[in-house]
């Protein structure tokens, strides 16, 4: 199978869905001739023109709100918010309009929009360009939240998100765009709410998502040398959340750690831990451990940035603790 970059996988998904359905269009900052801040919309402006690949002003509230309004009236917008950090400006429209209109209007409307954005650390761009804010969106009834870790998942899940009739927050990771992975030539989609076992193992379940999956796999490779076998589960869609797969794995391993790049307090890792405790307490032979970011704004200095978030070493340390 051919290998393509994560950004290319996303680009293919957008191109294919725009070809398939004329109602799909892209709007956002620098998505046009520039091709997107991380290159995801490269070539699409040339192929589809300025009507369907719309550069906007720096107006996140209007981008998100206009996407909701267009979605309610027959279009299927894919709005790009350049960094999840900027979603603060768009929050009212996402949380109060896009997420709630269907329910509040008695189930008589749909808001089929995707908000693509990216987050995470790794480029030394500090506290306004490096956050992991997924918990905010997961907390809101009416929004789906997707965070793919591989090229394959990125393409299949973005296609599903665009076809879904609900508002979807699609969060990419800035350090994954240049990672490569297998993606088939032929068309495929991935259903929402299905986690994926990225590595099978028996001793400890490691639940992770987005770039943390790569760190977990690296840790698994290291620990294999010491005879410790990790099962790495990639959550992929934080909402809907595939607790069945997680619980099945914990039933087998009896030990679980959860890795998230977001601040530890009030995060998705805590939600997953709570659900394991509620539904799988009897499977556990050791306390659940969360490996998450420190509760600090992400600092710029590489030394501090690295210290703020999980690392392979921190995951290994947590695994050793959970099996001790």
């Amino acid at each position: 199978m051919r290998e393509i970059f994560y950004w290319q996988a996303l680009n293919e998904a957008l191109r294919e869905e725009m070809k398939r359905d004329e109602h799909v269009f892209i709007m956002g900052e620098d998505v046009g001739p520039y091709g997107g801040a991380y290159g995801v919309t490269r070539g699409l402006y040339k192929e589809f023109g300025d009507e369907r690949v719309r550069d906007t002003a720096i107006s996140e509230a209007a981008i998100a709100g206009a996407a909701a309004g267009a979605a309610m009236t027959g279009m299927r917008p894919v709005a790009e918010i350049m960094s999840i950090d900027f979603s603060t400006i768009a929050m009212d429209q996402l949380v109060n309009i896009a997420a709630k209109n269907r329910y509040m209007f008695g189930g008589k409307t749909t808001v089929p929009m995707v908000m693509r954005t990216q987050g995470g650390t790794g480029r030394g761009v500090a506290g306004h360009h490096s956050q992991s804010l997924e918990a905010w969106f997961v907390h809101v009834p009416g929004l789906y939240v997707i965070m793919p870790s591989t090229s394959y998942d990125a393409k299949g899940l973005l296609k599903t998100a665009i076809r879904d009739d609900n508002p979807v927050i699609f969060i990419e990771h800035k350090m994954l765009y240049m990672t490569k992975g297998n993606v088939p030539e032929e068309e495929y989609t991935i259903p929402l709410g299905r986690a994926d076992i990225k590595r099978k193992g028996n001793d400890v379940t490691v639940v992770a998502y987005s770039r943390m999956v790569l760190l977990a796999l690296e840790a698994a490779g290291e620990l294999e040398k010491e005879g410790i076998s990790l099962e790495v589960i990639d959550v992929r869609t934080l909402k809907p959340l595939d607790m069945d797969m997680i619980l099945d794995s914990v039933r087998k391993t009896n030990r679980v750690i959860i890795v998230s790049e977001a601040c530890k307090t009030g995060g998705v890792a805590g939600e997953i831990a709570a659900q394991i405790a509620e539904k799988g307490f009897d499977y556990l032979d050791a306390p659940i451990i969360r490996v998450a970011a420190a509760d600090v704004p992400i600092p710029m200095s590489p030394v501090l940035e690295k210290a703020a978030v999980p690392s392979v070493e921190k995951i290994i340390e947590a695994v050793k603790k959970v099996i001790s």
Partner: protein
Amino acid sequence: MVEKKEDLINYLETMLKIRYFEEKVSELLGKDLIKGTSHIYIGEESVAVGAIAAIREDDYIASTHRGHGHCLAKGGELKKMMAELCGRATGYCKGRGGSMHIADVAKGNLGATGIVGSNIPVATGAALSMKMQKMDRVVLCFFGDGASNTGGFHESLNMASVWKLPVIYICENNLYGMSVSVKRALSVTDIAVRAVSYNMPGEIVDGMNVLEVKEVVAKAVRRARKGDGPSLIECKTYRYYGHSRSDPRVYRTREEEAEWKKKDPVESFKKKLLEEDVVTEEEIDNLEESIQQEVNEATEYALSSPWPSVDELTCDVFFTG
């Protein structure tokens, strides 16, 4: 522009419907038969009626937290509205939304909203959608003086102007953002002048005069439908009641209220129609009686409707096919 007799009577009828409906709402709030809050539109009827008279049935509107008037002028049904305000299963939103969330997207009402200014971007997006789908439909975006101070107002008007979208921004300037006078909250006296920043026409209109509102909005609608882009129209108006149920109106004088009531949109229009022999006193009496009757029936319908089933609490959070 010469108006047909039936249209003129229709405007009066809709204004009366809004007024009687809301007088009943106010009464039911007082008796606690309507829970929560409702923002009463009385005094501003000619804005919704005049503006919506200038569009087609297949055009869109986006409403506000003070939205009963817009909904009724867009053809909203009294029974479903009253049932919604009473939190019943038969309401527009199955009782989930109440006063601040009534919508009927299929009929062109993109909904009321509880967040001031939040529908301005939505209306802008609906206009983008119409333009992209090459439909010649326009969007009327209602909002108040307070909303014109939000960031979404600026972002949206700029966007609509750049993209020449078929949207008409209708600011209902009723002089107070809850309790704060526009004199203390706005950098300008006339909100319409803000249109200059967005390179679009800005018009001021007497919001107590239904025909004037209609005429000015109709001009903007023609412009939008032709593809020439958005307009901003400021309607100078006044809400007779307080901001919501708990407002004792300490921030304004009874004299000021009396001054505005002299220009009452319903009474002045009634007088005009009588003077011009469009209607007789008897016809007006009959009209008023039948609307009051309709409102009473809607109230009985609402209060005898079932409560929503608790089993459906989590239905419709997501579309599931």
